[in-house]
């Protein structure tokens, strides 16, 4: 049984990793379209990506939109989370539900909604429109991450700070915020990634002006299967890997300094 489970695990890992194994070599391909295995290897498509404005502009759009979405999301989610986790008030459970709603509604439904709604407001095909839509979708994710963190926060620490002479504002700055920092960073990161990765709503409302990278990739794969897609995928993969491994590497290096055992 355990041997079977072990092999099952290996198979699952291979299945999950397979797209990566295929995409990375394809990005170094010399073929004219996506093809596996590649007939030869070179950096041609990397050069193509970094010199072609039709790729670089959507990349910038995505970065700008994701950054704006993150800022807006955090501005909404941080106060909302404190209110919903720490205070009892009439309509709290409904507010809680509304926060999570965009997560439950299918993206395509949201997309159609935004298309007609933003159309009426005249902000379809604009950066602001995409940012607003992405924020609505990122809020529940950021809220889930942050509220889990805040629920686990020991409020004795805040009382301790106040008894030691810290005003509520100073308590927040010196105690609450630093202790919640990891949760805030992860929450913001999730908002950023969600926006950067979002395709369905972007296809509907980003248009030519605010075209995002996933939308451009989607268009490209439909028209020509340009291997630049593999380049972008590889670069994103490398970025995520760096984001995941980087902090652990730093932590591991930090822990190498001699640790004193508590007596």
């Amino acid at each position: 049984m355990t041997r079977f489970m072990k092999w099952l695990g290996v198979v699952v890992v291979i299945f999950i990793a397979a797209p990566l194994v295929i995409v990375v070599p394809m990005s170094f391909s010399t073929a004219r379209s996506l093809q596996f295995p590649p007939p030869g290897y070179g950096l041609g498509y990397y050069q193509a990506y970094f010199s072609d404005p039709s790729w670089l502009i959507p990349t910038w759009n995505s970065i700008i939109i994701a950054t704006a979405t993150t800022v807006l999301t955090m501005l909404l989610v941080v106060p909302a989370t404190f209110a919903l986790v720490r205070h009892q008030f009439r309509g709290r459970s409904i507010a809680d539900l509304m926060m999570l709603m965009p997560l439950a509604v299918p993206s395509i439904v949201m997309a159609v909604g935004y298309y007609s709604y933003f159309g009426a407001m005249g902000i379809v095909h604009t950066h602001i429109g995409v940012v607003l839509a992405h924020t609505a979708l990122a809020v529940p994710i950021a809220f889930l991450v942050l509220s889990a963190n805040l629920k686990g926060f020991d409020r004795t620490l805040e009382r301790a700070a106040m008894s030691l002479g810290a005003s509520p504002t100073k308590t927040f700055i010196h105690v609450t915020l630093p202790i919640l920092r990891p949760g805030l960073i992860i929450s913001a990161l999730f908002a950023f990634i969600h926006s950067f990765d979002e395709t369905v709503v972007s296809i509907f409302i980003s248009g030519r002006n605010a075209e995002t990278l996933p939308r451009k990739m989607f268009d490209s794969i439909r028209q020509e299967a340009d291997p630049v897609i593999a380049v972008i995928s590889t670069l994103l993969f490398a970025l995520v890997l760096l984001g995941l491994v980087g902090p652990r590497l730093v932590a591991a290096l930090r822990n190498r300094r001699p640790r004193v055992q508590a007596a």
Partner: protein
Amino acid sequence: MSYLDLKGINKSYGQFVALNDVNLSAAKGEFVTFLGPSGSGKTTTLMIIAGFEKATTGSVEIDGRPLQGLAPHERNIGIVFQNYGLFPHKTAAENVYFPLQMRSVKRAAGLKRAEEMLELVGLRDFGHRYPKELSGGQQQRVALARALVFEPSLLLLDEPLGALDKNLREQMQIEIKRIQRALGVTTIFVTHDQTEAMSMSDRIVVFEGGRINQVAAPLDLYHKPETRFVAGFIGESNLIEAVVTDPVARTASAAHLGEVEYAPTDKAKKGQGVTLMIRPEHMRLSRNPIEGRRNAQMKVETIVNYGDNALVIGKVGDLTMRVRVLGADVVIIKENQDCCISWTPDAVYLIAK
């Protein structure tokens, strides 16, 4: 001269009355313990003093200055919480520096002062460690140093020893007393552990059901409890229901014991229902009655050995009695045997309430 005054404090949450007319005065430098079972109001009182809870009515004054309307951070009161409340993202020294930082003391000077304070609590050279790198007892000391470094007008300790094991707890009791005496800070200590209260306090305030039951020095509380609750809560005791038969001859009648002579008191009236208290260590256990003492036949049910002493529990008629004997003496008796317990009238303390 009273330094801390609690005047007529009441606290209710809707229908529930948490505190009922709490009055107390403490002198400067005094170590006062709030003792009581959980839910008796001791922690609520502490939180009202600290400013985290608001009294429904009544006032708190320190040195004649009312604290009403002052937020917790404006009260200059040091608190050690049950789970210490150390900031996990700051080192021990930074934790101790925090109250000084809030009082605009420069970092270099403040950290130096913090290190001095850590030295006072026996944590020299531990300043650079984070709380998670310290043991429970060490964290406790850091919390104490942090609560004292800014020279608070009052120190509040909220069951700070609850999380420590027995040996460490005794060590910390001695430490806290030493530091408290050295600094002369007026201290309120909250606990439900009566031995802790006995060994540390100048005075003990016994809370029961949101009221102050009795305020007295530890030994007075032990030997002269004013209520049955205090007698039962502080130490082991035999509490016997009785009716005063003759206040002049000092006798009361109790079921299964008959007429019992009690120690001198001015509280007894003829025909009054009272409680007689006999501490287990004030009784003697023997095979045969001892002349000159009041004797009673007891059937031994359980013997609890503590090594240096033993508690013998048995029945006199239907009345359960507890007798403490020296560990060496317990060999004379076995469970289910009959024996004699005896006492003198001095050992019988009458409680009118």
